């Protein structure tokens, strides 16, 4: 069934409003029709995935063409994490030419009206979502957070689709823009207490692996659950990463799930899938007991100020031990606040390395691995552990506290 366009949208499609809008809306109509959308819906912001590391020269040429044709974003548009920390990337072996290409790309995006925040935690910093607000966000963890935790409405808008949405201010109305799609059809009952972001990340990995479908919405029942925003952020990122999950409910904690019945939009399914501690341990790989991690990395998603503060508290007056490197990634906003309050130099004095505007796994992982001579990594993020396994690391999960202990004592904490 054809997607209905209003007069302005039809003018965009006909090219009467310029080539960038024609390029943008044509893609949106095709995607929308594939998914049975009947109309386009206005969105309030876009989070665009544009990094040379993944888009390659083909993508960069596309952005150049749009910029040269006078493309301008119609709605507040934020850049997702990019593939380099502009100040520090070359220290990790990333070539100057990649840094220059990334600079070029970001200049083009700024010319098009972008808020160039280079962040995957825009929801904690530059653009928090609102309940029932329609969005066109690209970073999948941010989409799962916006839908699940804020009750906003977004599909995964990949790089070109998020740019199209930023240009038109519209997206096709299918998937999580529609009430009916947001109801849970699978229920996970957690039988083990959850403590800290690593546990929530492991739960996200387990639920994501079990669901493994963009269109299926899980509801999670956790007795006495009182997760913090950072816990839910890690759950969302992991569920998205492992299972392409874009919408979820935590009963009693997220806005569309005051009760399980509400989460499911009616009587819940008879079967509840039980999750115990052994399942969480199965959700991520373990380092062998005699392996000492070369790297301890806090990343994926970028860290919030409270997460960094937690690490600082765990470190106390201790320093990262020789032979181990401890790396934190965050965005420029958090970095600025750490700088302003003197915490950045405190971290650096303790031997901690900070990267801003990128995420550890998007910054040329193979090159960085070679430069650091690293084989094993310990992290509280299952998303990071999973992706780094793909890049050839031995990767394991530990709590934030145990990760810090591993870094300062330079001995394994994994039994």
């Amino acid at each position: 069934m054809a997607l209905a366009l209003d007069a302005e949208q039809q003018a965009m499609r006909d090219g009467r409003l310029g080539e960038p809008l024609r390029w943008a809306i044509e893609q949106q109509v095709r995607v929308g029709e594939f998914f049975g959308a009947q109309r386009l819906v206005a969105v309030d912001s876009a989070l665009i995935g544009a990094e040379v590391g993944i888009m390659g020269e083909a993508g960069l040429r596309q952005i150049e063409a749009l910029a040269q044709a006078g493309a301008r974003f119609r709605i507040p548009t934020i850049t997702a994490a990019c593939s380099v920390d502009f100040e520090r990337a070359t220290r990790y072996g990333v070539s100057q030419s990649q840094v220059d290409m990334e600079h070029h790309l970001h200049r083009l995006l700024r010319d098009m009206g972008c808020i160039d925040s280079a962040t995957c935690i825009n929801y904690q910093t530059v653009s928090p979502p609102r309940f029932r607000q329609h969005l066109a966000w690209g970073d999948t963890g941010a989409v799962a957070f916006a839908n699940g935790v804020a009750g906003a409405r977004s599909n995964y808008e990949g790089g070109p689709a998020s740019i199209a949405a930023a240009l038109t201010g519209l997206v096709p109305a299918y998937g999580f823009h529609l009430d009916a799609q947001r109801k849970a059809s699978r229920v996970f009952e957690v039988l083990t207490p959850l403590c800290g972001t690593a546990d929530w990340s492991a739960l996200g990995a387990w639920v994501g692996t079990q669901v493994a479908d963009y269109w299926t919405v899980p509801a999670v029942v956790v007795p006495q659950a009182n997760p913090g925003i950072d816990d839910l952020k890690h759950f969302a990122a992991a569920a998205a990463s492992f299972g392409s999950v874009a919408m979820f409910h935590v009963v009693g904690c997220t806005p569309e799930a005051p009760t399980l019945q509400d989460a499911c939009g009616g009587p819940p399914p008879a079967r509840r899938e039980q999750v115990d501690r052994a399942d969480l341990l199965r959700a991520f790989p373990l380092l062998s007991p005699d392996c000492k991690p070369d790297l301890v990395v806090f990343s994926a998603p970028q860290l919030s100020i409270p997460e960094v503060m937690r690490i600082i508290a765990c470190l106390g007056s201790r320093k990262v031990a020789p032979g181990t490197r401890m790396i934190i990634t965050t965005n420029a906003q958090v970095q600025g606040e750490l700088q302003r309050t003197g915490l950045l130099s405190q971290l650096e004095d303790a031997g901690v390395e900070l990267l801003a505007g990128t995420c550890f796994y998007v910054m040329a992982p193979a090159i960085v691995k070679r430069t650091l001579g690293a084989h094993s990594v310990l992290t509280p993020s299952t998303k990071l552990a999973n992706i780094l396994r793909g890049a050839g690391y031995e990767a394991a999960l530990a709590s934030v506290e145990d990760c810090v202990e591993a870094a300062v004592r330079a001995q394994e904490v994994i039994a």
Partner: protein
Amino acid sequence: MSTPESMGHSSLRQLQGVGFGPSVEGEAIVSRQGFNARYDLDRDQGVFSRPGHDHFGLSPAGKIYIFTTPKGGIATSWALLDLQQRGLAPLALVCQRANPVVIQGAVLAGMALLDRFDQDPVQFVRTGDRVRLTPATGLLQIL
């Protein structure tokens, strides 16, 4: 559901799905795993690079790539265009249920894609089979 082994591989010659893009014909490369261009591919070389991948070290270039489900992030939508322009992309994508990122990437690259089948294509097509996709009618045929 019957497996190819139990029902005879040749007994099922076509599957009905929903499609997008041009009609194509080519050799199938079938993976029993999910797919994400960032997690699974060495994009410089265009080969599967994730340890444990069932086609580790092989390239899907020019083939009809059949996989279970898209995984994770947004990387795949830019990556398909980039791979295609460097001659490293699959000819077409087939999976049981695509997510928006894969469709957005296929639309940008003008690449054929089929999903939402009446039967799981991973169960019925084998690597090396010659297959024809007719997205306009949603048909996947084993030749």
